[in-house]
């Protein structure tokens, strides 16, 4: 019990350190919050306007069951933020420690290696939550407050999804340690993950084989449940099954990610290549 408390303290200290570093570069911090607005929301909304009939997104009504393009893409942005917490926060943090040569000394402390990833993911999730709150406030300002009470369902959804995001953190951490220069891989994997989760469009437009991969991602179900609650869109699966899939895929991702991390850690210790970058 005492050990668990100590690991918890260590995870929180790591998260605070990461948040402190993030806060030092204020312009970058502001940009990381508003970037999804100009990179995803605005181009998507305007592409939607190109297909609109009488100002109505009648095409989206056919594929997703709603004409509310802005709300639809807005919720997609939130999923994008959440996924980035697992992908980029852990990848950046490990890469920075590798480059600075501090990973080896950090791993010599009595803290468990897994705790480092937990701390990095916690900082990523805190940043994602803050960014989400800011984006929701912008959403309330731009589109009215109607969506806000219906977003209350996001709290349990995001809580379950966090387990899967931690799994992504472990997986990406393992890949960065093995590849060392994994920027392209992390960037591409993050993009594919977000796209296949249906952040920008309903996944029913994807080819059938690709759609099955989408069903294996927790963010697909998290996002769909949020959209059903907030916008009354057509669910991808019956709701109880969708909740079950959210839990199962999140736990599976955590198990797979942790196994990859532990095996990578073992390999690096045996080979003595931790300090290389």
């Amino acid at each position, binding site marked *: 019990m005492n050990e668990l408390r100590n690991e918890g303290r260590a995870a929180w200290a790591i998260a605070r350190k990461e948040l402190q570093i993030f806060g030092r570069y204020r*312009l*970058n911090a*502001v*940009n990381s919050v*508003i*970037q999804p607005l*100009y*990179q995803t929301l*605005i*181009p*998507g909304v*305007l*592409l*939607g*306007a*190109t*297909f*609109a*009939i009488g100002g109505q*997104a*009648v*095409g*989206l*009504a*056919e*594929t*997703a069951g709603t004409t509310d*393009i802005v709300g639809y893409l807005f919720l997609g942005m939130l999923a994008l933020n959440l996924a980035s917490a697992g992908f980029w926060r852990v990848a950046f943090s490990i890469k920075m420690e590798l480059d600075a040569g501090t990973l080896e000394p950090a791993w010599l402390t009595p803290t468990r290696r897994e705790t480092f990833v937990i701390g990095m993911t916690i900082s990523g999730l805190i940043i994602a939550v803050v960014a989400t709150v800011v984006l929701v406030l912008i959403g309330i300002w731009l589109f009215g407050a109607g969506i806000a009470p219906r977003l209350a369902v996001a709290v349990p959804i995001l809580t379950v999804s966090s387990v899967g995001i931690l799994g992504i953190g472990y997986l990406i951490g393992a890949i960065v340690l093995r590849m060392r*220069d994994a920027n*392209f891989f992390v*960037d*591409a994997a993050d*993009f*594919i993950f977000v*796209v296949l989760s249906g952040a*920008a*469009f*309903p996944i029913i*437009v*994807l080819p059938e084989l690709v759609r099955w991969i989408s069903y294996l991602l927790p963010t697909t179900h998290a996002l769909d449940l949020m959209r059903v609650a907030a916008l009354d869109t057509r669910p991808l699966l019956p709701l109880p099954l969708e909740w079950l899939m959210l839990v199962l895929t999140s736990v599976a991702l955590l198990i797979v990610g942790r196994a990859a991390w532990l095996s990578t850690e073992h390999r690096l210790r045996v080979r003595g290549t931790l300090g290389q970058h």
Partner: protein
Amino acid sequence: MTLADLRGDLRAFWAATRKEWRILRRYPGSFLSFIFWPIALPLAFVFQAQAFSGGRADTAAAFAERTGTTEVAGFLFVGWATYMWLSIILWGPGTSLRTEQIRGSLEAIFMTPASRLVVLFGPAVSQLIWAIWIFVVVGVALWLGFGVAIGPVEAVRALGVIVVGVPALYAIGALFAAVVLRFGEVHALVQGVRGLFTAVCGMSFPIVVLPDWAQTLALSLPPTYLIADLRAVLLSGSEIGRIIGDLAVLAGMGAILAIAAVFAFKRTEQHARRGGRLAQY
């Protein structure tokens, strides 16, 4: 400037290009990225367009009326290819100066008798190779994936549009390089400007869907003309004569921006040299 100076600068220019190309070759992972992104990024928007179209004839007709083409994939691939080229140019000169600054080699380079333009634009030639590569990847993807064939005549016309657009875009890149010398870090600024271009210049939409004020803003930015003209020659089969007005505006913007960039870069360099800030980062 004598003929010998000019010849010396050209040799330095070629040397800078070769150096950058050699560094690029050392990181084969970047080649993968230049295959992945020109296909993956527009493809995501093609799926999004399918969702917005909903397979209906009236929505497809609305798209054709607003964009002047029925080629949804072509429209989006050309727009995003230009975006990627623009990104390379915005990051390019500034990033290479910043890299030299961090490596501690910028001061040494500035002590050589080579022109500052060589330092600034030497690496840009290798980036031009990437730009051509992006358009080739996009052309092949459109042909194989969507059956949109781009003929040699259209390709030559597109090359003409790119040549007219080069001064304006590289001048914007040079302005960013001046900011790097002055302030050191430009990541957030580049992201912001790229975001502005994405939001108003019509990478994924025709600018007619923008509100009036945003259309006015879009028409004051060079990428708007570049994207529209590339789409016109590649997708609508327009001859150069039909877009000559746009090209004249683009060339004019290029001239003004180039003068502004040279002025800004000289002033910043003077400031950095007087203050001894060239090697600081």
